[in-house]
C-alpha cells in the first residue's frame, strides 16, 4: 500500500494499523451533506500533533486510548463514514460507521530529545497521512497515529480531511477526547443544515479572490502544486513576514493575501464544521516599501468571503475542485485555538504542531500558540526555491537568529 512516510528509515517506526469507530450503530441510510464551503476545502487536510510527556501518559494503554475514541466518535459518528458521489458528481458522506484508521508506532527518542529540534517540521513524521482516493468509498477521512516514545511519552497525530471541519473543530474534538479520558460525560450537539449556512450582511457579491479553481483531480483529492513545498518553523511573532516575503519575491509582489482565522461570532456550543473566516486583504501600495503600520491596518480591513466561497463551492453541484490555502499567500491564525486545553491528567501537552497538507503555490504561514503562554509558533510553507531568500530577509529584520539546518 503506498505510503507518504518512509518506513523504518527514521526514528519513528512500527505502523500497526487498526480501526476505531462509534460505539452504537448509525441508522441505515443516514447521510451527511457537505456545504459549499466544505467542498471548497476538500483538497486540504489538517495535520495536528499533540505530544505528552512520560509522566502524563506512561500508564495510558493503547486500549484505553481506543476505548475513549469510541466514546467520542459515538457522539459524532458521521465523521467515521465514507465519501460517495451522487449521480451529479457531488460528494456526500455515507454514514456507514466504517471508522477512522488508527496507526500505532514507536519512536527511538525520548520526548525531550524529540522536542530539542527547533525546527518543528519533524512533527510531520508523527502524523500518518494518506489523501482521500483514488477510491472514495474506501478512504478514511481521519487518520490517528499514536507514537510511543522511548521514555513512555505519547504523541497523538491527526490527519483530518478539511471537508469535515476546520482546525477549531479538530481541536474541539480532541479536547472532548481528553475530557472523556478523564471520565467526564461528553456531549456533541447535532448540527442542522440550516445552522451551517453563512449569511454575510456585508456580502459584496464579488467573486472571492481567496479561492482558486484547479483542474479536476477526479477521485484522488490531492491539491496540485507545481513547486515542491517545504516547511520551516521558528519561534517569533508573525505579521511582518508578508513584508519579508514581498521583499524577497520582488515583482510581481503579493498584494493580495488570504487570512484564515476563527469566526469571532462563531456558534456556541462548538460543533465539527467548516466555520473558519476566510477573508481577503488587497493593498494598492508596494508591500516591500510600505511601513509596517500601514500593512497591519490593511490586514485589519480584511473582507469576509465565506458566503461567496460557499456559493462557488456549490456551483456545478459540488463537482468542481478548488484550492483555498495557497491560492494566494495565506496567513492562518490559529492563536485562539485551544490546543493546550487538551489536558491528560490535568497536564497540557508538551507541544502542539498544526499545519495544512495540500497548499497551493503561493504559500502559507500558520501562527500557533506555543506551550509557554504569550509565545507563538510560526510555520511557513513556501516553494522550495523561495524559502532561502525569505529566510535571509527574516534574518535581516532580526527575527530569526540562526536555524539548525542550513546555516
Amino acid at each position, binding site marked *: *500500500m503506498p505510503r507518504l512516510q518512509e518506513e523504518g528509515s527514521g526514528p519513528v517506526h512500527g505502523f*500497526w*494499523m*487498526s*480501526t*476505531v*469507530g462509534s*460505539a*452504537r*450503530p448509525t441508522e*441505515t441510510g443516514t447521510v451527511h451533506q457537505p456545504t459549499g464551503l466544505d467542498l471548497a476545502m476538500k483538497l486540504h487536510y489538517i495535520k495536528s500533533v499533540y505530544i505528552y510527556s512520560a509522566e502524563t501518559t506512561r500508564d495510558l494503554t493503547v*486500549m484505553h486510548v*481506543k*476505548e475513549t475514541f*469510541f466514546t467520542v466518535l*459515538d457522539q459524532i459518528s458521521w465523521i467515521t463514514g*465514507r465519501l460517495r458521489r451522487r449521480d451529479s458528481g457531488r460528494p456526500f458522506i455515507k454514514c*456507514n*460507521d*466504517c*471508522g477512522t484508521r488508527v496507526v500505532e508506532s514507536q519512536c527511538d527518542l525520548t520526548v525531550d530529545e524529540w522536542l530539542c529540534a527547533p525546527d518543528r517540521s519533524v512533527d510531520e513524521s508523527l502524523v500518518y497521512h494518506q489523501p482521500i482516493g483514488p477510491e472514495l468509498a*474506501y478512504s478514511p477521512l481521519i487518520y490517528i497515529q499514536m507514537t510511543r516514545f522511548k521514555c513512555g511519552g505519547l504523541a497523538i497525530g491527526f490527519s483530518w480531511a478539511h471537508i469535515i471541519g476546520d482546525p477549531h473543530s479538530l481541536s474541539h474534538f480532541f479536547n472532548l477526547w481528553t475530557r472523556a479520558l478523564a471520565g467526564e460525560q461528553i456531549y456533541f450537539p447535532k448540527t442542522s443544515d440550516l445552522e451551517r449556512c453563512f449569511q454575510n450582511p456585508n456580502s459584496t457579491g464579488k467573486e472571492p479572490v481567496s479561492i482558486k479553481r484547479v483542474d479536476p483531480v477526479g477521485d484522488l483529492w490531492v491539491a496540485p502544486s507545481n513547486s515542491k513545498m517545504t516547511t520551516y518553523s521558528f519561534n517569533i511573532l508573525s505579521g511582518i513576514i508578508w513584508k519579508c516575503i514581498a521583499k524577497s519575491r520582488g515583482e510581481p509582489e503579493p498584494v493580495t493575501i488570504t487570512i484564515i482565522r476563527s469566526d469571532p461570532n462563531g456558534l456556541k456550543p462548538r460543533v465539527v464544521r467548516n466555520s473558519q473566516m476566510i477573508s481577503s486583504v488587497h493593498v494598492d501600495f508596494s508591500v516591500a516599501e510600505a511601513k509596517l503600520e500601514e500593512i497591519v491596518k490593511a490586514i485589519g480591513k480584511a473582507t469576509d468571503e465565506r458566503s461567496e466561497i460557499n456559493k462557488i463551492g456549490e456551483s456545478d453541484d459540488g463537482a468542481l475542485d478548488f484550492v483555498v490555502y495557497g491560492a494566494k499567500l495565506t496567513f492562518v491564525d490559529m492563536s485562539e485555538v485551544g490546543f493546550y486545553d487538551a489536558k491528560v491528567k490535568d497536564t497540557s501537552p508538551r507541544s502542539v504542531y498544526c499545519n495544512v497538507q495540500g497548499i497551493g503555490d503561493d504559500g502559507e504561514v500558520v501562527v500557533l500558540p506555543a506551550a509557554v503562554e504569550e509565545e507563538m509558533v510560526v510555520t511557513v510553507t513556501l516553494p522550495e526555491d523561495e524559502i532561502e531568500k525569505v529566510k535571509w530577509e527574516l534574518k535581516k529584520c532580526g527575527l530569526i537568529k540562526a536555524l539548525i539546518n542550513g546555516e
Partner: protein
Amino acid sequence: MSPPKMPDLSTSTKHKYVKLGYQYLVNNFLTLLLIPILAYTALELFRMGPEEILNHLNSLNFNLLHILCSSFLIIFVSTVYFMSKPRTIYLVDYSCFKPPVTCRVPFATFMEHSRLNLIDSPKSVEFQMRILERSGLGEETCLPPAIHYIPPTPTMDAARSEAELVIFTAMDDLFKKTGLKPKDIDILIVNCSLFSPTPSLSAMIINKYKLRSNIKSLNLSGMGCSASLISVDVARDLLQVHPNSNAVIVSTEIITPNYYQGKERAMLLPNCLFRMGAAAILLSNRRSDRWRAKYNLCHLVRTHRGAEDKSYYCVYEQEDDESHVGINLNKDLMAIAGEALKSNITTIGPLVLPASEQLLFLTSLIGRKIFNAKWKPYIPDFKMALEHFCIHAGGRAVIDELQKSLQLSAEHVEASRMTLHRFGNTSSSSLWYELSYIEAKGKMKRGDRVWQIAFGSGFKCNSAVWKSNRTIKTPTEGPWSDCIDRYPVFIPEVVKL
C-alpha cells in the same frame, strides 16, 4: 379416523375440529378408559350396600402378618423406585458474555479490512461481500481485538487474552447472579473447539478462581458447535454419580487463532459468520436448588453421523495451497444437516411428542413402507409438545432449513434469527444467547418446554429439552438488556452495502 395426509387439509375448520377431537381422544386415552371402569365400580358399590361390602372384606381373612408384609412390600417397592429414578438436573442459572463496544465490527469496516487484507484477490473480496449481504448478521457483531488489525495479529498471547476476557467475564457474571462461591464448584467442564492451549482452558479457570484441588475438571476441544450440549450431557452423567453436587459449564469459541488468512472462498465463509461469544452455565442436582433453578433437564439426545464419509468431511479443517489453515465448508452441508436432524428427531420424538402425534407418525411410516411409498411423510407437530425453540444460529440457511423441516412459524425461530443478527454465529454458546432472548422478551412461563438443537462438525446433531421451573420476570439482566427493545428487527434478504 383422519387419513395421514392431515397437514394438507388442516386449514379447513371442520378438519381442525376433527383433529382436535382425535388428539384429545388419543392423548387422554387412559383417563377416558378409566372413567367407565370407575363408574361401573361405583355403581356396583352403591348396588351392594354397606353390609355386603363389609362381608366381602372380612372374607378376605386379613391378619396382622399379611398387613405388615403388604405394607413392607409397598414401602420397599416405593423406595427402590425413588432411589433408582435418575436425579433431576437443575439449571440454576446461566450468563452470556456481552462483548465490549470496542470490538464492534460494522459491515463497512469488515469489507474495508477485507479489501486491504486480500488486496491481490478482488474476487475473494467480492465473494465475502455477497456472503455478508445475505448473512443475516447485523452491525453490532464483535470480533476480538487482534482481528481488528490490518493484517490481523493472531498471536498465542492474543488468543489467551481473548479467552480470559470472554470466559472470566461470563463467569464473574454467573457468580454474581447465583451467589456461587468458586470453592463450591464440584465439576467444571469447558468446551472450546478450536483453541486448546496447554495448560487447558479449564486449568486457566481453576488457576484464576483458585478452585478446589479435588475438582472434577474436563476440557472438550475439537467437538464443534454442538459441544455445549455434549458438555451438558457429560455433566448430567457425572451428576448422577455424585450426589449433592453442582457443575459449571463454560461454552465458548476463541476466534483469534482461527481467522482464515488465505483466499480460498469455501474457507472464507467462517470469517464472515463466526463472532465472539461465551456462556457459563450452573447445573446442580441438589434438592435445595429446586426452588431457585430456572429449568429442569428433561431429555438430551446426541446423534453422530460421522460413520458416513459424506458427513465426516462436510466441515473439515485443512490447509489451502498457500499453507493457510482454515475450515472448509462443503456445499452439501444443508442436506447433511437435514439428515442429522431427522435421525435426532426419530429418537427425541417419542420422548416429547404426545401419543396422538406419535400414532399419526407411526401410521404414516407404516403406510409408506407397506402401502404406498409416495405418501407424503407426516411431520410431527412439535409445536404441540414444545413452546420454545432454540436453533443453533449457524447461519441463515440453517435456520431457514429447520424452519421448513419442522414447519415452525416465524415467531418460533425469532430467537435464533435475532441472535444471529445481534451476535453473529457464536458457535457453541449461541443456544444460550437465544434462550436469553426468549427470557428477555418475557415469553418464558412456568411449565414451558424449550428445545435446544445444535449442529456441529462430525457431523453431529445434539438436542436437549428443558422445562421451565418458574416464570422469568422482565426486565432481565443479560446480553440483551440494552437492546431488547429494538428487537425483533426486520432482516432483509439482501443488505445493500
